[in-house]
């Protein structure tokens, strides 16, 4: 007689979160919260761009902010590295905790914040210098110790750009293609050894192949870094993100003012299969507006 059962198997069906777990995501929400945002709002000269944001960004995960234009997602991501400070009329309220510390406390130096929380922009913005000097800029201005050559090489390896530029480090960065320039900007960011990498629509100015390369890169990088990305391409969020936050625009009926609000924040799998809020469903199915 042969026995049939090898191992005890569960009889009840698995939830999607469990599926995500067995597919290697781990349980993202169990990991340390790198950022804790509480009741955040941002206004520019009296106009509230986004308000009432509450979410946690978890370590070694890719967190995506999606939503229609004007919903404040770029504004939000710029709160994480205090780039909103550069806009004189910007006012940030509420709380952003970074590893438990208030990012906007009086004794916090924005320069130090930006070293640990790097940013890659929508349109690649290489400096008008050589490839080497681009990557070396960060370590030089921050006075980082150690071999500069090693830093540059390591950053270029991490950004999957080394092989393409190793023979022309002294050439101008402006001679690279769009996709290469963006990877250069990522390498530039990595050279200062940040903790978090913020990406504001990193692939929207690139062709599809370069976009795929950047997405594969994010997959690699999240092992060491925490990544937050803003994207208007929700399929991209579906592909790369572990957690997705959907923002929408609220229009004040009396004043007509438009303000961004957080609608739903959950595992990407849930957002794209069974979203809890109808607004989310309308957006991801493309029936928005």
């Amino acid at each position, binding site marked *: 007689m042969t026995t*049939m059962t090898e191992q005890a198997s569960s009889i009840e069906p698995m939830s999607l979160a469990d*599926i995500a777990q067995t597919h290697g995501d781990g349980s993202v929400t169990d990991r340390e919260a790198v950022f804790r945002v509480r009741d955040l709002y941002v206004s520019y000269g009296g106009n509230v761009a986004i308000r009432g944001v509450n979410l946690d960004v978890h370590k070694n995960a890719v967190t995506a902010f999606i939503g229609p234009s004007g919903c404040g997602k770029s504004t939000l991501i710029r709160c994480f590295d205090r780039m909103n400070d550069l806009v004189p009329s910007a006012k940030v309220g509420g709380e952003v905790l970074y590893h438990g510390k208030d990012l906007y406390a009086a004794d916090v130096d924005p320069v130090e914040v930006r070293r640990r929380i790097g940013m890659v922009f929508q349109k690649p913005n290489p400096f008008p210098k050589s490839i080497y000097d681009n990557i070396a800029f960060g370590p030089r201005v921050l006075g980082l110790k150690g071999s500069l050559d090693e830093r540059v090489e390591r950053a270029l390896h991490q950004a999957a750009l080394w092989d393409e530029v190793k023979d022309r480090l002294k050439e101008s960065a402006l001679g690279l293609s769009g996709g290469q320039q963006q990877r250069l900007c990522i390498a530039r960011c990595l050279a200062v050894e940040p903790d978090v990498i913020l990406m504001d629509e990193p692939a929207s100015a690139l062709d599809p192949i370069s976009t795929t390369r950047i997405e*594969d890169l994010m997959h690699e990088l999240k092992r060491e870094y925490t990544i937050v990305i803003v994207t208007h391409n929700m399929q991209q969020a579906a592909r790369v993100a572990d957690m997705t936050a959907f923002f929408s625009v609220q229009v004040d009926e009396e004043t007509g003012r438009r303000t961004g609000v957080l609608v739903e924040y959950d595992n990407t*799998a849930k957002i*794209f*299969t069974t979203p809890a809020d109808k607004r989310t469903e309308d957006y991801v199915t493309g029936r928005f507006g």
Partner: protein
Amino acid sequence: MRISFQEELDELESSLRVEGELVLRSLRGAVEAVCSQDQELADEVIAFDDDIDSQFFEVEQGIELLLARQTPVASDLRLVLALLKDNLHLERMGDLCVTIAKLTKLSKGLPPDAALLEGFKEMGERAEQMIRVALRSLEQRDRVAAESLLELDELIDRANRRVVNRLLDTGGDLEMREWGLRMILVSRCLERIGDHAVDIGEQTAYLVTGEFREFTDASHP
């Protein structure tokens, strides 16, 4: 490029392969149980179906997630759709094995016909072979192997007809007739398992050629 996507696809295929192995074990157990009238074995086959069902669910959910997150197109899409249907076929095969086991239990104590049971053993081996060919042709994207399933199915169909004829010939008393009726159903289940294997082969051909074509149609013999 798209490394994680490829990994997810590979994982789905390998989950399906695991399900296939489970179905094969279930089939072997069911045929063994009917041929040696082993009641305990039949119970085990019935319980084992839970494993197949949970594997089915895992593949099902995995496909849903993959479609939502990765929006596959072209050959990737055909692969996912083929896996979706193959998943169903395997699960149905599992259910048919359970039916065979239940019929075994129902025919407890009834007098068997040795020749018939010999025939079932052969049909069972044939069905097992077809499942293996179907799964391997999927794995290797082999259209020719998939199409060969048609001939193998013909053999099972003939064996099925032989069972019916044999039972018509032997006739017998009430108990024998009761046993006979149940065994026709067992034969039918085995024949259905063969059909499902052919269906899996059709999906493989679809995957490779991009065209869905039935190897054989019930309404056009």
